[in-house]
């Protein structure tokens, strides 16, 4: 029944238009995208949508339960939790997207080289990836932060390094399957150079699984970063970050549970949005559903 509808639509469409048409059908994924965009906008324009400064202390006004002037209440130093949650999004988003971007670039380059050239280069690179994969990524990130010291940059590097093998492997597998395609052979027969074949034929056609993995990777990175900050190995107070806010809040969980609830809910909503988006992308990009 759906098929007939599809046939009626105009034939001329780019790959992106097909993708968008598939994606748009998935209401949950669109909702995820919208929520994520709202969170990003909130983080960018935090200065304009928050009534207080995130690190402004007011000991007289500590531990105020949520009310009209402090929507999420205040913490042990009287700082406005709503403000801190909004500003906290900056750290999480920077780490989430930054770590994934870094891991993706390095991983994709390694995977491309590995898959395209094969042979000894491939074997060598993949053994290194195996070694990194052998250490659970959370522990690997912890070890790196332990060595380099805990701050935003190191946290980002640590998470990125631990995730490189994922992208390298996906990219490699997908390059190896695209490499078999006759359009790659045709390009070579036409005399197109190796670099151009890689950039023009192989990379664009290997990218779908990477995009899906990246979306889920952002979710994973945000969770890991929050977890590490919660352990005291990530972003240090007083900089507002969801993980370290929960870490402090747990000391007051019996008396003032709201201090724990709001930053945690912020993490959950972000991750949920990313997961919904990732599911939608996967379904829309899945070649099995195409044609």
């Amino acid at each position, binding site marked *: 029944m759906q098929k007939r509808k599809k046939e009626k639509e105009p*034939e*001329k*469409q*780019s*790959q992106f238009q*097909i993708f968008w048409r598939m994606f748009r059908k998935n209401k949950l994924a669109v909702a995820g995208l919208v929520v994520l965009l709202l969170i990003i906008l909130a983080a960018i324009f935090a200065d304009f949508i928050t009534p207080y400064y995130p690190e402004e202390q007011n000991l007289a006004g500590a531990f105020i339960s949520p009310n009209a002037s402090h929507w999420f209440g205040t913490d042990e130093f009287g700082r406005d939790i709503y403000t801190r949650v909004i500003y906290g999004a900056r750290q999480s988003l920077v780490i989430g997207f930054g770590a994934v971007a870094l891991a993706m670039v390095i991983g994709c380059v390694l995977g491309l080289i590995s898959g395209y050239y094969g042979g000894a280069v491939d074997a060598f690179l993949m053994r290194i990836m195996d070694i990194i994969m052998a250490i659970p990524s959370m522990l690997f990130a912890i070890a790196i932060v332990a060595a380099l010291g805990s701050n935003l940059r190191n946290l980002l590097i640590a998470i990125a390094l631990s995730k490189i093998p994922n992208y390298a492997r996906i990219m490699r597998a997908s390059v190896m399957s695209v490499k078999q*395609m*006759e*359009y790659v*052979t*045709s*390009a*070579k*027969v*036409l*005399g*197109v*150079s190796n670099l*151009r074949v890689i950039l*023009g*034929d192989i990379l*664009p*056609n290997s990218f779908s699984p990477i995009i899906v993995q990246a979306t889920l990777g952002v979710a994973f990175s945000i969770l890991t970063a929050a977890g590490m900050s919660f352990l005291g190995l990530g972003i240090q107070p007083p900089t507002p970050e969801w993980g370290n806010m929960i870490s402090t809040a747990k000391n007051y969980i019996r008396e003032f549970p709201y201090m724990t609830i709001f930053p945690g809910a912020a993490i959950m909503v972000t991750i949920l949005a990313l997961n919904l988006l990732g599911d939608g992308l996967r379904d829309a990009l899945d070649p099995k559903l*195409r*044609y």
Partner: protein
Amino acid sequence: MKTGEVLVELNDICEYFSVGKKKLKALDGINLVIHSGEVLGIVGESGCGKSTLGRVISRIYHPTKGQVVYKGMVSNVPRREEKEHRLTEKQKKEYCKNVQVIFQDPYSSLNPRHTTRKSIIRGMEVHNLYPGHQEERMKELLQMVGLPESAADRYPHEFSGGQRQRICIARALSIEPELLICDEPISALDVSIQSQIVNLLISLKERLGLTMVFISHDLSVVKYICDRVVVMYLGTVMEVADSQELYRNPLHFYTKALLSAVPIADPEVEKKRHRILLNGDIPSPVDAPKGCTFCSRCPYADALCEKERPALKEVSPGHLVSCHHLDRIEKEETKEGAYVTV
């Protein structure tokens, strides 16, 4: 180059692939010439190495041994010998320009993210042809292969298999090659489309004076389109002859068996057609026989066949056969008056 002169020469081409520790001999000592302006058919069962041969000629594969000579110049040798033959990048690119391939599967041979325009213009850009006039040239090509100009802005998934194959042909012709290798160009298409593409190829060949290598397992099409035919079996050449001669007077027992499998359109004649059924399956090229590759399935094979590979001998002008026992086969046949039937 004048019609009839030697365009490509294949000297003792071998192509081995390693399968685990074993060697798969896809091509084992192929000697052939391709004349300028002819259509050379290469036929054989699947797995006999005919596609591999096409890929060696077009430089997709390097041979393990032997050399491809194009217009008197060495153009494809084993990778380690490239230095020895002073093969420069420029020469390789020049050779790419002159030899183009059309593949079997039109669905995977176009980049799904490129419009027809991009697919066709790409080759011209690489070789710096028609600077400034590429757009017109592309339209001309589209017209030549029978596609509307509006096809230029569309993506591969919007076309049918036959239309895609037309785009592939336009792409191959865009850089004006001299030799066009068609690697089973019609076997992935619907039967109704096949003849259209075959006729298109013939007319283009006439119009552009192309030399063509036509690889196929469809003997009737090969008969229709080719001037000369090469019969391959397990990586070796069994028989080479002019198309007419080969179909009228096949000498190698394998060729006879192959031809006897072609259905005949006339029901009266078809009823009388004797089929030669070969025993067993084609052996795996990993452990191909040491002597004549065909000896495991040939009813005439004896100890000599198992030990020694027969050379490709010219039995009449232009008719080459590789068999030790041509005389015996002929004698037995006249005695029995017919093919061996099962």
